[in-house]
């Protein structure tokens, strides 16, 4: 394993540890500390994938998360394969499998390349202009073409099995969050740390130091130390402060309101399988609330936009340096430099210093600095001033470039000459990495010298330092970082004194002298020029120009029409170039063009990591009652009710759900049934104005309810619609126990607090929720009294003595219980409330006591059935937010004479007071065996006419009643209350409507049991 592009003695990799992995099945050798990119490059591989639209070969361009298109698919396990992984950020380890993506059958021979052949017919937005079908060939429309387009689009492949890995999110508060650990960030963190502040330093890369790791170690000293030693010293200093947290492999992905910053830490992907700690998540989201933030995210190099600039082998000049110094890889044997600024010259010097060959420096500028030219001369590097690369050659990797000199107007002059090279290192300048600053809603300003945007006005508690602030000289970068660290600590209320800055000595090129050239002339007509701006989405300069000409000229329209910057890299290296080209096309300046919006995330974030630990079994609490385990043991069928899980029925072995419900419902009326009613909301209400309060929140009258008694109440919203119901008991003159629906418990309490605190603060009332203080077993049926009597002491349970709608205190096994004689079934019923911790005991005692009497536990389905037999409503089933008490024909529950109550005024609005509204009725199908579908619509004719069919209403509830031996249904029917005895029809899909008779909804009538 020769690694022919590895440079001896250079790089911060561990040469003692070889690591190999596979790329498209071939074994590739590298070292610990390599990324896939650096290892591929070390082996002379530069092409890794195909572009999105034209399937053109794509190679490695950047050295970090700025790379636009060098992405692979990792792994082949259907559960854990990862698409779209950037080779420049993925560290290698044994067992890693990488595969090129978006190509078929192979990377080098891809049929999708046909798109490339026809590229001229596929300009920006071409799909808007075709595929819409024509008058003659309607079928030639999008539905016909879309499947093909879809298959060609997309990049990698999603896993097809659930993710085996876990994720988590954690919260942190800190005083100073420093983002980026280059020289600026390190200086900031060190200075802030001295104050004793809580500091978090985050670095996206695998090591601290940022661009210092990409600098020639022999050319620069900081405070007399080589860069690597300085980094070590800084790191050691940080480690001295217990309040400092340093996170590497962690990207700040989102800067949100109020200094809330999201970080994503890649915990284990860089490790081989056997070294991954099972106890650790794959990735972790840090949710950081920072008092102050220091942005030290560096600058991102931008390429030049020139003809045929997208071939593999064309790389950012800075990336070439990074691979050289960081990874000990010189990505080409013969490197041509192409630039409009000084910084790329450094690449030439570094290559020479490392013993590499430089094919020349092609510089667009006319004026070149003398010192630089001299250095080049000394290094034996040919310099071509005022020259442009006008084309390149080489199929899967460039082999040569064509250059032409430029005239005074910047046009191509004279003939093309060919320079052989296998790598072109380009630089079009540096863009301060302002993404997070912009996300924080700071305002950018245009910097003419950089020809780029830099931070202008801050909005949140942050400050930028170093290259992200447009400061490029190392000495100043350090000074700015230190200052930012101190200021941030002080702004977070810490005191700290400045210390002396280390001196920087460097022979590195620090000047820029940039002359912006947004599109390098090619001497060819526009349509013949393939000058790419966005290498991922295949956006060419000509696309931007065409969009502008067509009228999609605002920056946002151009972006959307061409998809510029809409790929996974979000245009990190390409956007500013694109803005420049748009500006030229429109004849205005770049700041006048403006920017598109920098949105979160800075870099794509794993969806699973955002979900964190709150997935699978941890998604939502499974709320259960104290008797829940008992229900589970009985193998009950459950249903989710909000976040509760309630037993729906208890089928016996071999029994169907339907039969179980029938059996349970029958038992409740013939012997005895028992329901776990714990989940009902319960509110303890106390105060001398409690009655007045109830009188205002319920529709009926409460002033005269005597202690010991209970009453049913309906609650409305101010819009007059029924929102909740329940029974409230008067415990004492100033003390009530309210129950609400299971689902309404939380919202009713909020609503009551709201009215008390904001509308009626003069009322002397306290509210406390006691929902889970009590476990509730509701025993009903002819044998209920006997059963309850054998468990509850201290109460005469005889219905004569303990009448319906009263309550009494007693004990069970010496434990105080409160028994309510309320009924949701119509049967004689005892709702026994016991402190929750005794719930399971009570339940089992009742089961045991009831056994000789045929006591049958019943679930919510039988409960629904039983209450429907008696015509009791369920809020949320009979009602849907559009139903008034009158619609329910429950006017009896609305006090006409008392004063105001919530929602009262709405009941007299013209529409609400109409007499032809839908009203609740009972329905008896003529065929008593037929149980209509809940939700079925009711129509007025025996045959279903063609749509639209006038609908009279719908079935809200329907059951087969075992106690009546036939089906029963409740329904909302237009003018229902006035149509007793009339026949309506229940519409059915694909079948004749079923006739049914409108009846009162108390199916059992007063013949059975108790009613309110």
């Amino acid at each position, binding site marked *: 394993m020769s690694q022919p592009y590895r440079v001896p003695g250079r790089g911060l990799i561990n040469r003692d540890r070889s690591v190999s992995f596979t790329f498209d099945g071939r074994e590739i050798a590298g070292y610990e500390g390599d990324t896939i990119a650096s290892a591929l490059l070390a082996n002379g591989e530069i092409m890794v994938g195909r572009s999105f639209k034209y399937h053109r070969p794509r190679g490695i361009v950047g050295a970090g998360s700025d790379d636009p298109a060098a992405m692979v698919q990792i792994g082949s396990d259907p559960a854990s394969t990862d698409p*779209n992984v950037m080779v420049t950020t993925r560290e290698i380890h044994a067992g890693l499998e990488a595969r090129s993506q978006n190509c078929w059958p192979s990377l080098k021979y891809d049929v999708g390349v046909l798109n490339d052949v026809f590229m*001229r017919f596929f*300009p920006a937005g071409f799909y808007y*202009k075709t595929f*819409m079908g024509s008058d003659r060939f309607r079928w030639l*429309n*999008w539905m016909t073409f*879309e499947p093909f387009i879809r298959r060609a689009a*997309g*990049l*990698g*492949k*999603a896993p*097809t099995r*659930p*993710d085996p*890995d876990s994720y988590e999110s954690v919260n942190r508060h800190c005083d100073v969050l420093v983002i980026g650990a280059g020289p600026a960030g390190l200086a900031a963190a060190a200075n802030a740390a001295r104050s004793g502040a809580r500091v978090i330093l985050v670095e996206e890369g695998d090591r601290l130091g940022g661009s210092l790791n990409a600098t020639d170690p022999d050319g620069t000293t900081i405070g007399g130390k080589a860069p690597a030693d300085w980094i070590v010293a800084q790191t050691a200093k940080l480690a001295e402060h217990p309040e400092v947290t340093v996170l590497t492999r962690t990207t700040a992905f989102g800067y*949100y*309101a109020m200094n*809330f910053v*999201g970080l994503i830490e890649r915990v284990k992907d860089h490790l081989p399988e056997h070294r991954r700690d099972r106890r650790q998540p794959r990735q972790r989201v840090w949710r950081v609330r920072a008092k102050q933030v220091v942005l030290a995210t560096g600058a991102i190099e931008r390429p030049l936009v020139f003809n045929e600039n997208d071939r593999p082998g064309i790389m950012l000049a800075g990336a070439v340096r990074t691979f050289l110094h960081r990874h000990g890889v010189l990505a080409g044997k013969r490197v041509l430099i192409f630039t409009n600024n000084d910084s790329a010259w450094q690449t030439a010097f570094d290559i020479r210093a490392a013993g590499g060959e430089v094919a020349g420096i092609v510089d667009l500028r006319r004026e070149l600095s003398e010192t630089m030219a001299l250095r080049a001369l000394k290094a034996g590097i040919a310099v071509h001033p005022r020259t442009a690369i006008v084309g390149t050659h080489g199929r899967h990797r460039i082999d040569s470039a064509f250059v032409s000199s430029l005239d005074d107007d910047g046009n191509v002059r004279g003939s093309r000459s060919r320079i052989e090279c296998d790598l072109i290192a380009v630089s079009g300048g540096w863009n301060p990495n302002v993404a997070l600053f912009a996300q924080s809603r700071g305002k950018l300003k245009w910097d003419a010298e950089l020809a780029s945007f830099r931070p202008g006005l801050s909005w949140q508690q942050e400050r930028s330092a170093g290259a992200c602030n447009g400061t490029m000289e190392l000495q100043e970068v350090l000074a700015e970082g230190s200052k930012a660290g101190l200021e941030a600590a002080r702004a977070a209320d810490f005191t700290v004194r400045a210390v002396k800055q280390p001196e920087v000595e460097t022979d590195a090129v620090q000047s820029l002298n940039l002359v912006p050239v947004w599109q390098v002339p090619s001497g060819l*007509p526009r349509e013949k020029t393939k000058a790419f701006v966005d290498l991922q989405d295949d956006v060419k300069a000509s696309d931007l120009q065409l969009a502008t*000409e*067509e*009228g*999609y000229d605002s920056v946002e*329209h151009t972006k959307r*029409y061409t998809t510029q910057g809409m790929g*996974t890299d979000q245009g990190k290296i390409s956007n500013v170039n694109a803005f420049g080209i748009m500006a030229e096309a429109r004849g205005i300046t770049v700041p006048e063009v403006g920017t598109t919006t920098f*949105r979160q*995330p800075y870099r794509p*974030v*794993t*969806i*699973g990591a*955002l*979900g*964190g630990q*709150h997935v*699978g079994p941890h*998604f*939502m609490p*499974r709320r259960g009652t104290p008797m829940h385990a008992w229900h589970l043991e009985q193998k009950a069928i459950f*249903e*989710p009710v909000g976040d509760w899980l309630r037993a*729906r029925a208890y089928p016996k072995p071999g029994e169907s759900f339907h039969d179980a419900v029938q059996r349970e419902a029958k038992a409740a009326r013939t012997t005895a049934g028992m329901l776990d009613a714990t989940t009902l909301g319960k509110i303890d209400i106390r105060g001398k104005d409690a009655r007045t309060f109830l009188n205002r929140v319920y529709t009926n009258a409460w002033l005269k309810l005597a202690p010991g008694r209970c009453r049913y109440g309906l609650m409305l919203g101010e819009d*007059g619609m029924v929102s909740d119901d329940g029974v409230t008991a008067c415990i004492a003159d100033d003390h009530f126990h309210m129950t609400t629906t299971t689902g309404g418990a939380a919202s009713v309490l909020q609503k009551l607090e709201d009215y008390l605190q904001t509308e009626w603060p003069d009322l002397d009332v306290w509210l406390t929720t006691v929902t889970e203080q009590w476990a509730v077993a509701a025993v009903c049926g002819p044998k209920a009294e006997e059963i309850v009597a054998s468990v509850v002491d201290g109460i005469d349970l005889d219905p004569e003595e303990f009448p319906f709608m009263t309550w009494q205190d007693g004990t069970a096994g010496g434990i105080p219980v409160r028994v309510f004689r309320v009924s949701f079934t119509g049967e004689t019923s005892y709702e026994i409330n016991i402190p929750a911790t005794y719930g399971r005991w009570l339940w089992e005692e009742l089961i045991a006591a009831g056994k000789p009497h045929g006591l049958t536990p019943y679930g919510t389905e039988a409960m629904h059935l039983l209450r429907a037999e008696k015509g009791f409503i369920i809020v949320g089933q009979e009602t*849907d*937010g559009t139903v008034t008490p009158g619609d329910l024909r429950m006017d009896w529950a609305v006090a006409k004479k008392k004063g105001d109550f919530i929602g009262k005024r*709405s009941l007299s609005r013209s*529409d*609400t007071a109409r007499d032809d509204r839908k009203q609740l009725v009972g329905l008896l199908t003529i065929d008593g065996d037929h149980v209509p579908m*809940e*939700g079925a*619509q009711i129509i007025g004719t025996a045959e279903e006419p063609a*749509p*639209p069919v006038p*609908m009279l209403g*719908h079935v809200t509830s329907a059951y087969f009643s075992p106690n009546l031996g036939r089906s029963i249904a409740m329904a909302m029917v237009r003018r229902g209350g006035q149509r007793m005895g009339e026949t309506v029809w229940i519409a059915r*899909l694909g079948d004749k409507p079923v006739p049914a008779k409108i009846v009162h909804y108390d199916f059992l009538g007063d013949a059975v049991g108790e009613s309110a």
Partner: protein
Amino acid sequence: MKRYSALELIRQGLGGHRGWDRVWRKPEPKPSYDAVIIGGGGHGLATAYYLAKLHGMTNIAVVEKGWIGGGNSGRNTTIIRSNYLFDESAAIYNHALNLWKGLGQELNFNIMMSHRGVLNLAHDEGEMRQLKRRVEANRLNGVDSEWLDAKEVKNFCPSINISGDIRYPVLGGTLQRSGGVNRHDGVVWGYARAADALGVDILQQTEVTGILTEAGEVTGIETTRGTIRTPKVASVTAGHTSVMANMLDIRLPVESHPLQALVSEPIKPILNCVVMSNAVHVYCSQSDKGELVIGAGIDAQLSYTQRGNLDIIEHQMASLMELFPIFSRLRMMRQWGGIVDVCPDASPIISKTPVKGFYVNGGWGTGGWKATPGSGHVFADLIAKDEPNRIAAPFAIDRFTTGALVAEHGAAAVAH
């Protein structure tokens, strides 16, 4: 207007794409128009298009404070369906759906209308009941809609997890096969191009700052580019509906909330339809480009910042994991927010107002994209005739006074 076609593409391709027409002009505002539409979103542009095309009102302008399509039209998850519960809603959304079907061809602009089918999932008894009620109402209203049990759901959309041991298992769902998604920008541009060709002036970067009245009647508008006289002003400003109405001291029952959406990185086809779920708050589809397009929930508070918060996204992703654990390793590429104008009954306002000549179309909240052509169509009718037609009438503002709400919470609860 040069017609678009494959042939034209080839011709232009050979000629270096030099001969395309501008999609729309960049006119200077005229001193007066017969009507002015405020808001260059899908609804506003559709309104203008139908006013010009069907009512011959071509001396009109669309005034847009930013770039057309920059509001919710450019931010939505493009879910199209018409399976609403009440007759009034079914009428308007189905009207829209029918218009969508031929719209690309009518506008001569490919809006990439993809009728991939929309699944609405049910996870408990209550939802089943509600959804079945909707399916039945839809059927009788002539809206295509069918009930699928959990297995059928899985057959239709193989990437969904219907396992019984998730927190809220999928018990079934409804399917509207004619529902689907389209390309939001394409719709906006298609309408703009067609309206422009009919003579409508599209005035971008022009903000309406005031509405002029005399004796209770509209006489014109103030804009950041001067005064424009007109007897008819129609606000179609979505998130800013209240701001417009407040200019005339009209208060509306509307609150503006941030609503977020996000896209994943593009991947090869993995999700073949639109999936929406209420209990496990998810709505998701895959775009032609390959990204998963995922809608999040609204932030509770009102806000005009066009941004939302991370916690909403986190919860959204956890929910997505319930139904699509296979998406866990994919990555969120971009998230953004819109400002949605929510009405208390989750239905829109298409209405005259107490000020003669001032019309409001808004309150579409989280779900107005699907209505775009229908809304524009009936609103144009209202503006031209000064009377709402049968479809628009139920959505007049006075329903909040009379109580005749069109309470579509069940059908609209998941933001979409």
